[in-house]
């Protein structure tokens, strides 16, 4: 079927944000663009199941998220270390992928469990409400809130270690301090 011009415009308008979501999820531009392409294909095939008047962007995000998760599960079965593969893909093409200034942040993001990562991105960057994010991820609002919370806490831990390292050759001092706290 042919999209009406308004729908076509709305679908295209969602593409930049879909790409940003896909890149944040996968850490890889090529894979992300393939995901977006597959999302658009599915969206057009299933356009009749979209309810006019509801949030088109959330609908498209849901398709992309589900595609990513099924691919993720498949890869996990194939390669055993889902997260390790993701981290590896970051290392192999950092310049083209992700601007260097975001590299440390991406590395920290890559360490989060997938469900926390997607929740944090949807709420913290895509601008969805907790309710919308819950709809996209197919879970309860409370679950999204707790995932976002845990993601922020975990990232804060990871990033505070990064910034402590910036203070220089003080690892020995820190070792002593943390040793002291433990005793």
């Amino acid at each position: 079927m042919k999209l009406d011009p308004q729908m076509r415009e709305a679908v295209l308008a969602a593409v930049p944000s879909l790409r940003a979501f896909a890149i944040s999820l996968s850490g890889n531009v090529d894979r992300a663009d393939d995901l977006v392409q597959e999302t658009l294909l599915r969206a057009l095939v299933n356009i009749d199941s979209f309810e006019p008047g509801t949030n088109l962007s959330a609908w498209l995000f849901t398709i992309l998220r589900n595609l990513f998760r099924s691919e993720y599960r498949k890869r996990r079965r194939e390669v055993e270390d889902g997260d390790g593969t993701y981290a590896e893909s970051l290392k192999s093409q950092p310049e083209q992928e992700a601007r260097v200034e975001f590299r440390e942040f991406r590395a920290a993001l890559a360490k989060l469990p997938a469900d926390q990562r997607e929740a944090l991105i949807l709420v913290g960057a895509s601008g969805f409400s907790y309710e919308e994010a819950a709809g996209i991820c197919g879970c309860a609002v409370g679950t999204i809130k707790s995932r976002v919370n845990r993601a922020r806490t975990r990232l804060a831990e990871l990033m505070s270690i990064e910034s402590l390292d910036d203070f220089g050759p003080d690892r020995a001092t820190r070792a002593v301090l943390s040793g002291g706290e433990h005793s």
Partner: protein
Amino acid sequence: MKNSKTAASRSQDPSEEPDGKANPGLGGEIRGKIGRQLRDMYDDVVAQGVPDRFVELLNRLEKQNEK
């Protein structure tokens, strides 16, 4: 490269607070930084707009469907 010793070399989670509590001052500042970096990273991609391949894809799909 100085920053290449990133997270990967420290995977076994040395970040657990001994007493289970985060330092609230440090945590607040870092949480703000996390929020900004997340949005900056995201917006950096959004600002790239719609790559041609997706416009062409829609054109192609619509043409196919006309038949």
